[in-house]
């Protein structure tokens, strides 16, 4: 199965990057789930958590304040001024 290549970047560093199976984020419109093959999208995140299910290992939760999320060709970029991994 195809995978998503994900990177979570904050203003001063790349917080996390790797391959993932699924991402769940909360935009200003509501929750959005992203699987491989998703159409290109650009969404504004509302303050909240982004859950990433990596290809291997346990789920990762990242906090992204005032950020946005872009998806294209199975490349997901989560951008926020301040972002950090919660677990």
């Amino acid at each position: 199965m195809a995978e998503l290549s994900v990177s979570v970047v904050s203003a001063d560093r790349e917080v996390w990057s790797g391959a993932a199976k699924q991402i769940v984020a909360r935009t200003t419109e509501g929750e959005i789930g992203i699987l491989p093959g998703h159409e290109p999208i650009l969404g504004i995140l509302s303050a909240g958590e982004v859950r990433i299910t990596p290809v291997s290992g346990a789920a990762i939760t990242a906090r992204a304040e005032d950020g946005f999320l872009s998806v294209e060709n199975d490349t997901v970029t989560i951008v926020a001024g301040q972002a950090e991994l919660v677990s």
Partner: protein
Amino acid sequence: MGAQLRVYRQKIRSAQTTKKITRAMELISASRIQKAQARMAASAPYARAVTRAVSAVATYSNVDHVLTTERENPRRAAVVVFTSDRGLAGGFSSQVIREANELRTRLEGEGREVVNYLVGRKAVQYYAFRRRAAAKEWMGGTDQPTFETAKDIADTLVEAFIAGGESEGVDEIHIVYNRFVSLVTQTPEIVRVLPLEVVDGVEEPGSTDVLPLYEFEPEVDDVLDALLPVYIESRIFNAMLQSAASEHAARQKAMKSATDNADKLIREYTRLANNARQAEITQQISEIVGGADALVSAK
């Protein structure tokens, strides 16, 4: 010991002490450049992502956003000057200030009132001494800029811009900072951040990348509303990081030449001191010989 000799020795000692200080500062700057450069590199993915997103939105929407439209007859222009907090960095701060002064003359020639925003103690001192008003000042931490400061600056600017020149705000925003070209070259640069000239990113997306047709969530306009301040923040933060790296590089260069100068001074004064010592000895010998001669002939 002769007076002349004592003076020379004093000068040698003074040059040696100065050299110790400048050498230490040189080494400190050298080690900090690495860190500053690393921070610049680390913030690149963010800048890239933001620029890409802004170009994507701008490409697929014919927006007339408040931040992208040029005002008809702009009256007030903000100039943000990025200098350092401390001196001893060669022409680092003065070249930015000189550039800002030129910009100011140009803008005033075009009939705009200049509103100053100052970053770094050097700029604040320069403007205070000349009694030029500044709308807002930020001091401290120019050598290790934080994102919070960048955000604060960006928020202030965007707010002033949205208010507009009619009501104590501004119609356009220029930033003046030292761009880090290499370890030996830092050039002052003027960039107009607002109104935005979209897709003028430092990080142009490669020509092979065709931006896909995005879905926007929520609407295009709302996405742009949220993105543009972020874009400004990232540009400001980038300017601050470049400025910080340039500051360290400029200081290292200045301190290196100061150390070299001290070396030269020490060498010159050592020669002179040796000369003076030798002259003193020669004089003493001739005095003794002369004295002995006089005694012999007196008998």
